[in-house]
């Protein structure tokens, strides 16, 4: 009789342990997928920005053709950013930072051309690009939040045991270290 009770208690403990194991494992998988999904969101927005730029450059050319240097810098930065795709998070973040800097310089230049600023196409592109810029930073924000959550789970006890058993590795944060972005000129619209 006593043996039966001990056996039952043991069985219940083992069962609870297995349930916990499954739940933790699934939680880790869910968080890992969330970070992956968040990363692909950044890519979608970066791609959108790459696609919008040729159109913008064409529109600006029509009004401010002699700002060639600024325009070429934007095209150059865009091409660098496109070729940095798939070269790792650090490389890509740097190239995209450069593109953000070049774009903000272009918009600063555009301020001096009233006709350009009144152009509907330009206004629509400006809204699209500044919103895309926002979307990039929001998707980066969500990606970093997800990575923090995922890393916490892989490193904190007791879920770190499960993470270690099944090889869940900590994720990498998306940090903008590009020189260009840090030195982006402060544009005054006053």
């Amino acid at each position, binding site marked *: 009789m006593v043996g039966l009770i001990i056996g039952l208690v043991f069985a219940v403990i083992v069962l609870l342990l297995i349930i916990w194991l499954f739940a933790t494992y699934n939680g880790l998988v869910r968080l890992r997928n969330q970070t992956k999904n968040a990363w692909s969101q950044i890519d979608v927005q970066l791609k959108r920005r790459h696609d919008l730029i040729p159109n913008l450059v064409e529109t600006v050319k029509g009004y401010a053709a002699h700002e060639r240097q600024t325009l070429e810098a934007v095209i150059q930065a865009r091409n660098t950013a496109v070729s940095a795709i798939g070269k790792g998070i650090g490389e890509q973040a740097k190239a995209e930072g450069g593109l953000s800097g070049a774009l903000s310089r272009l918009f600063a230049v555009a301020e001096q051309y009233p006709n350009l600023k009144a152009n509907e196409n330009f206004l629509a592109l400006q*809204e699209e690009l500044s919103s895309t810029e*926002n*979307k990039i930073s929001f998707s980066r*924000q*969500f990606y970093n939040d997800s990575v*923090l*959550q995922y890393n916490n789970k892989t490193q904190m006890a007791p879920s770190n045991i499960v993470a270690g058993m099944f090889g869940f590795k900590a994720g990498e944060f998306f940090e903008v270290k590009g020189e260009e972005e840090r030195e982006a000129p402060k*544009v005054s*619209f*006053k």
Partner: protein
Amino acid sequence: MWAQIRSNRIRSVILVGALALVLVLLGYFLGEAFLGSGLWGLIIALVVWIIMNLIAYFQGDALILSISRAKKIGPNDHPRLWNVVEEMKIASGLEKMPDVYIIDDPAMNAFATGRSPKHAAVTVTSGLLQKMNRDELQGVVAHEISHIQNRDVLLMTLCSVLLGTIVILAWYGSRILIFSGGSGGRRRSGGGGGGSGAAIILVVALVLAILAPIFAQLIYFAISRKREYLADASGALYTRYPEGLASALEKIADSTIGLHSANQAFAPMYIANPFRKEGMSASDLTSTHPPIRERIRILRSMAGGASFVEYNKAYQKVRNNKQNVIPASTLAVSAAMVSTRQPEPAPDQSESEQKIDRAREVSAALDKLHKYTALACPCGTAFRIPPDYKGKVIRCPRCGRDNQIMNK
């Protein structure tokens, strides 16, 4: 951070359970009083409740949107609004882009609908679009998106249906009890003068019929007010800019225009109570929303951060108590320091010029939705012709030229 959804669920289940208990008690005692069987009363109450739930679950959002005369928009109808919603969809990690609706109403308000994050919609009034700048609009949309993300819409629908069922049952129950003089109870005891047991049941049924709706409403309000604080906290976190939402709420508080198409039952879904009266005190139990000035003060007391921890601290400071507005389990896993972002750079336009631009943008969007035809006179005047305009020609009031209307 998103674990908050789960820990909230437990608290919500308890409150919904309390509401359900009120319904069960009411059904049972009304059944005892009329039908002589508490069980039958219970069954009727539950059947009414289930039918109402099914309607609310599958048709609720369509119902609300059609009652408030909201119109669905696409990405090109109002690009700024669409982009802001998409930005907040990304920031909150919502899996699907919600539908976006505009209500043609000068009042400033917004609400979220939909039973799940996959079937969701964000609705804003044209008045809001005209008066808010981008940061403020973002704050409002973030607040609504967090209602969707926190599953508040489903919870509030569930609660308002429960409340509605209780109110209906209590209303009919108390009328019949009062006007029939409790004949049901007498019939049950075989006309033998009515036993004291039957009399007690009658009294209990009557008291319940009167008190149940009041109780239910208080529970309902308690749930919905807590949700508003949470949505404000999430809104600040998603935008990383509490001032945007604070300033939006301030504009709403200062406005005196009431919403025409609002309905009492849907009040908790709006960002600010559409029926609010000024000067509501903080302890007002009968409000679906916390006082708007208090919400602004909390958002502005967040000391240079946008995290849940900061919001919770600001809440305690403003309310002057030690209560957590955000569940402790959420606070434990969320980052303590989340830095805020810079405001959008101000465009080189005066505030009034921006207002005119926004008004143009909104009226263009609304005209498009109402299928108006756009026409430009060679003198530079722009027309928008309503779809029911019968004539083929329109005379320009500025230069007197007759303009042919295309595709007529």
